């Protein structure tokens, strides 16, 4: 159902929230698969099944009585991340890189007293940062060290790559860079920078902050465009493999490129946002519709990546229709 006449937006192929929800999420993501991506502990198991690199899980705190476990884990691992298992929008995530007598050291060098740490864990356990109602668990995870290529592009946090995967085919990607303003978080609505990525080459095309075009990272004055994302072929393989494996047709895959481990899965998102279109200055709809029209999807991950690249350059996908024989 439409209300507004044909406009610049529809000509540009912009995907709106309503259409995303009905035409893609409701149509392609069966509700029963949601817990697989909403609960990060389950996602991690699933990713290991699919042969995808994940951050190591140091421990899970389930109840208030287990909060003291953080002291042991902190002593053993020094550097780690706490996050709510069913968190949304990056809420509640906290990164520590050292232990002091009084508490834990945060990335900005300040010591967070034990009392505050435990209070924060309790808030997470009571579901303050989580989707839905009720309690949650807290995951204690390996802190991923970003690839050295990002040293002049990410301020005080870990940059990540978000790729929209539709029917196992990578559709559109963006690099998210934390800034001083976003307080080390890579989320766009908090002031992070989003940079569109050419799906074929893995080179960034442009950057946006708060919906405005930016060419330089505000904290380093380094250019955010024409940057080669390291390990791009591996990223494409990871997202495409995982996107196919989870059973969700329309999914956002968030990846951190780790200095030591290479592309590593951060999380999956069953309702990926639509800001990626501004970062790429490109509408999602035509790309998605071409894949929607495919009668069947090849099992081979490399074939799917090939389709994704062809789709990005707006080639006709006709030639892929006959790949697996029986189509209507």
């Amino acid at each position, binding site marked *: 159902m439409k209300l507004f006449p044909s406009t*610049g937006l*529809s000509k*540009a192929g912009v995907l709106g929230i*309503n259409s995303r929800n009905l035409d893609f999420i409701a149509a392609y993501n069966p509700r029963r698969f949601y817990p697989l991506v909403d609960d990060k502990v389950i996602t991690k198991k699933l990713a290991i099944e699919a042969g995808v690199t994940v951050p190591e899980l140091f421990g899970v705190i389930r109840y208030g009585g287990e909060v003291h476990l953080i002291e042991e884990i902190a002593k053993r691992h020094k550097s780690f991340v706490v996050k709510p298992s069913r968190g949304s929008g990056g809420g509640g995530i906290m990164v520590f890189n050292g232990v002091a007598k009084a508490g834990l050291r945060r990335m900005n060098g300040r010591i967070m007293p034990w009392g*505050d740490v435990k209070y924060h864990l309790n808030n997470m356990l009571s579901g*303050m940062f989580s989707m839905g109602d009720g309690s949650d668990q807290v995951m204690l995870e390996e802190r991923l060290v970003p690839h050295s290529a990002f040293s002049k592009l990410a301020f005080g946090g870990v940059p990540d790559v978000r790729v929209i995967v539709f029917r196992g085919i990578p559709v559109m990607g963006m690099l998210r860079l934390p800034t001083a303003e976003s307080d080390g978080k890579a989320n766009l*609505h908090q002031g992070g920078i989003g940079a569109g990525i050419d799906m074929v080459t893995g080179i960034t095309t442009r950057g946006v902050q708060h919906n405005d075009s930016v060419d330089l990272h505000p904290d380093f004055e380094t250019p955010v465009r024409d940057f080669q994302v390291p390990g791009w072929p591996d990223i494409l393989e990871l997202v495409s493999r995982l996107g196919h494996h989870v059973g969700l047709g329309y999914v956002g895959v968030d990846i951190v490129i780790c200095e030591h481990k290479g592309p590593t899965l951060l999380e999956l998102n069953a309702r990926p946002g639509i800001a990626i279109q501004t970062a790429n*200055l490109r509408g999602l709809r*035509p790309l998605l519709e071409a894949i929607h029209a495919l009668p069947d999807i090849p099992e081979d991950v490399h074939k799917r990546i090939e389709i994704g690249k062809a789709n990005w350059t707006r080639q006709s996908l006709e030639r892929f229709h006959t790949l697996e024989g029986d189509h209507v």
Partner: protein
Amino acid sequence: MKRTQLLIIVCVLVASALGVFFYKVTQLGFPVIPDLDSDTWTIESKVSFTGRGEPVTLRLALPEAQGQYSIIDESFIASGFGIETETDETGRRAIFERRGQDGSAVLFYRAKLISVDQRTENGERRAEPEAISDYRRSERRRAIQENATPLLVALDSVLTEALEKSAGERSFITQLARLSIDTNDDRITTIIEGGPPDIDNAAERLVFLLNAAGTPARLVEGIMLDADTRQAPLDSWVEYWLDGQWVSADPVSADPLDNARALPIVYDGAPVVDGDGFRRLGVSWSVARNFESQLLRAMERGAEYAPWVNATSLLSLPIDLQLVFRVLLLIPLGALIIVVLKQVIGMPAFGTFMPILIALAFRETSLLTGMLLFVGIVSVGLLLRAYFNQLQLLLVPRLAAVLIIVTFLMMFIALAGEASGIQTGLSISLFPLVIITMTIERMSLTWEEDGASEALKKAAGSLAGAVPGYWILTNEYIEHIAIVFPELLLIVLAIVLMLGRYTGYKVTEFFRFKVLARHGET
């Protein structure tokens, strides 16, 4: 497939709604527009009590059959009770009797009233009542000469002063009322001490003084008919005889009240309900402005030609239920507004139906006071919430603490409102506590995580959404349509269902993606 199913459902809904609507309008003559000037009212009295297994006698005061209002129809619902009515000088009452009543029972009395214009009523003047007092002028003079008690002297002095300062009966009464309320005046304290009991109350004192001055006056307890309400309070005022008729007047200033609004029930402090054989007595009065006679005629026609119309009409419900539905039926429209604001416009707001709940709360307080109260309570709550956060409390106890503080805030506002004479204090009792608490919690979370601007934007969005909601929930025309033609709500359902399949852009997305619209691929 889904599309065609939906289209069929929508068409069926719209067609049946319009079918019933047009039948009611064209064939039965139901009015589409309410007659807001109509001055007929329905009042309903609900008496509940618990019997002790003994014979029960219960006397309920009824509105006067003569006076400014005439009763065109009245009925009792009291199964198992014998009912009779009697009239004496303190008013009319119904007597309910039963040999043995065990457990709780509820009795109803319902009356339809029409305002009668006194001046055109037959033109005949009713016999002037006599002032009831032992202190009338002639008797007072004699009494003072015989025995000058302080009471008589004080009374004489007050009445004389009022008489000297006035030019005519009307201003005499005003002057007397002005003197009567001044309890620092020694003469008045003397009168209070020496006069009959209970005249330390301003209203009773005025009645006493007026009667002493020879102006017939009486104390009235009754109901002011000014708005639809399920809990009409019993007001008291005074009536005095002026220019051949009883005038209802304010008990303190003696200024005349709107006679067309004051419905007397009992006079001179007589009890509204009394009797014996029961305990836990509760009486409540509901008042509703009647739909105009056109509607009554339509209902009669309906009873004849299409009994199903009346059977399914909300107007056949008892008034206190009708009054509930007058609000309830508007909620679907509020929901429609939310759907449009969220799906088509893309307004940011806390929670899904928060704006409409806020609007419902504003209905009790009026828009401006509601807004001020809301902003005030939420900002104080935010400050406290920030402080509680420093104390490191767990989530649920912290919410509970904020809830309790909000309760106290509302209590203080009510007390302050009462002290400064602003009536809004009373109506905030229905201001939903939990909604405010949740708003505070969500707002402070958004504030911490996404910054102040995002939190304020959402708060403003919630309030802005409440404005159209408030307008709908208080519009008399919409209320009339909703209660007379509830079938039209099926159309609202149809629109909501259609919007459920809306895949177009939200208005906010035109701004969000305007760069793309300019530079995007073609």
